[in-house]
């Protein structure tokens, strides 16, 4: 149990890369990329977890109890925004590739030379 959560993050990372490598569709590639990124939030939040800790918000509890690490949460929040924007931009590019090249299968796209 003590290191399992970190391994879960690693699995998600590698699974995402596997999807990207074997993909036959650029939209699928971009979605797999966003799965890869989700590994980073899982890693960050598992690192910041503290047994018995509560969420780092003190609206209803007095500020003495144990809380989990708020810094990793702030990082994960930033990361989620980055994920959404990068995914949207790459999908926009994928749409344009489909229009200009007529296919979004990486195997059929002509080399760029």
């Amino acid at each position, binding site marked *: 149990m003590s290191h399992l959560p970190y391994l879960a*993050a690693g699995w998600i*990372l590698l699974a995402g*890369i596997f999807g*990207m*490598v*074997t*993909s036959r569709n*650029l939209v699928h*590639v*971009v979605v797999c*990329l966003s799965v*890869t*990124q989700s*590994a*980073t939030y899982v*890693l*960050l939040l598992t*690192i910041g977890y503290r047994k018995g800790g509560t969420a780092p918000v003190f609206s209803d509890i007095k500020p003495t109890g144990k809380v989990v690490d708020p*810094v*990793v949460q702030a*990082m994960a929040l*930033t*990361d989620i925004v*980055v994920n959404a*924007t*990068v995914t949207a*931009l*790459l999908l926009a*590019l*994928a749409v*344009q*590739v489909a229009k*200009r*090249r007529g296919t979004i299968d*990486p*195997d059929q*796209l*002509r*080399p*760029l*030379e």
Partner: protein
Amino acid sequence: MVQAAIAAPALVAVLLAAGGRWLPRPLVDAVATGTVLAVTVLLGAVLAAALRHPVVAWLGGWRPRGGVSAGIPLVADPMAAGLALLVAVLTLAALVFSWRYLVEVQAIYHALMLLFTAAMCAFVLTGDLFDAFVFFELMSVIAYVLTGYKAEEPRTVHGALNFGVINSLGAYVTLMGIGLLYARTGQLGFAAMGARLPGQDHRLVTVAFALVCTGFLVKAAAVPFHFWLADAHAVAPTPVCVLFSGVMVELGVYAVARTYWATFAGAVPGAGPALASLGVVTALLGGVMCVLQRHVKRLLAYSTVSHVGVILLGVAALDHASLAGAAYYLLGHAGVKSALFIAAGTLLNRFETLDERELHGRGRRMRVPGAVFLIGGLGLAGMPPSGLWAGKSLMDEAAERAGWWWAAPVGVVASALTAGAVLRVWLRVFRGVGPSGEGTDEHEDTETGPRMSRLPWTMLAPAIVLAGGAVVLGLITGLIHGVSHAAGLFVDQRGYVAAVLSGGAWHAASEPLHPWTAAGVIGGAAGVVLAVPVAVLGLRRPAPRLLRPAVDRLRAAHSGHVGEYAAWLTAGVALFGLLLFTA
């Protein structure tokens, strides 16, 4: 003051994005150029201050108490400030070049260029690893958009997509590494982490270094992370290429160097040899690929790969003299390569193509771009007293001392290959030498809207200034001293930590460096002499039969297939990790 250099371009970018659609184009140009000019002046002042004493600014006033802080510092040591200044100068050149170039969509191009400046400055100046990741992403996002700017062309969007996917993947691997470091040190600042790394588990630290470096090495286009670069550079608008090749790619190497010296110094013994191996392969493969290209921008792109490999090799010696050489090489390369891209842009504008065979002899009347190609070729070859030569000379001397006898020949070969390719273009396009071949008959967008009858001075002046400056850089002794001082501070981890966390003194003793050594001059001459046969042989039919299978295989490997690039990236991380553990 440091904050203003980041805030000013970002704020003007925001205003241009909000109101730019109602402003006339000349006003947008003037506002953007004026802003970057102001930023250049500001960064000049920051650099001057940093040369006296490095500037540390804690944002929001979260100064450290008892050696720890909850905030983020900006650290302007001379190296960082100097690089930020280079960013500003190149953006200025690119914007002046764009006055009469590139069709604007509202004012978004200018807004993005300004944001790009802000992002690169922030990336260079930040003293916090996670913050560096955020600005790395900002930089990358803007770069994807600028690459795909001419969205109506098929190659453009394809190149931008490959660039985006591979760079983002690299960045996420970096973030995993940041996570590992955070778990062990409980810190995010370079200095704060560096202060806590000694005594940590060796394996964890090494893996974290490998992962953190991945994103930066992707940006630096080290083999096998380099595939995206040519795809993106060949299709990005010319002024954007100036920034990409001139400084963005090099920022990847800077980031590796910064994380190493500020945080990991001494904790990863394998770092030097591992980075050097990547550097050597990158320098050579980039050079070979460069010679094989016929598309002028793609050719220049591979030459960037090769030269960044040389810079990486210089950093890998992990020594202050070599780092000074690498920094000087970077400076010289930035000038030459930017000028070459601008000259290529004028060709594209004139003839709607960048295929070297199709351009055969058509540039005879274009004196200035021709001169830029000639000077640029000689500069890349490492002809004294160019900046590349001076940097190379310093790096070679340091490598010699470290017993890396092979470093100098690798540099000469890389210079000869890349310079030979550029000189070949000069001979063929501007002199009309060699048989005129058939082209691909594929026409590209001119990037200017209507084609121009005469090239305006705004398109030529930046190229002349940059190329001219870069080839005499080796004569400016004061600058060489400045760079060696900057490098001396850069490699002083204890000084960095003290200055950031407790406002302590940060002085480095650095003996003055001199590039004018016999070995250095011979190395430079060798580069030029070897470049000539590369150029002349290249004019004839390509690759002799014996080499053809290898050449075909190399070309096939650079396939534009994004899945393949991702596979290579994964293998690259594994390889780099292995090298770190075994070397």
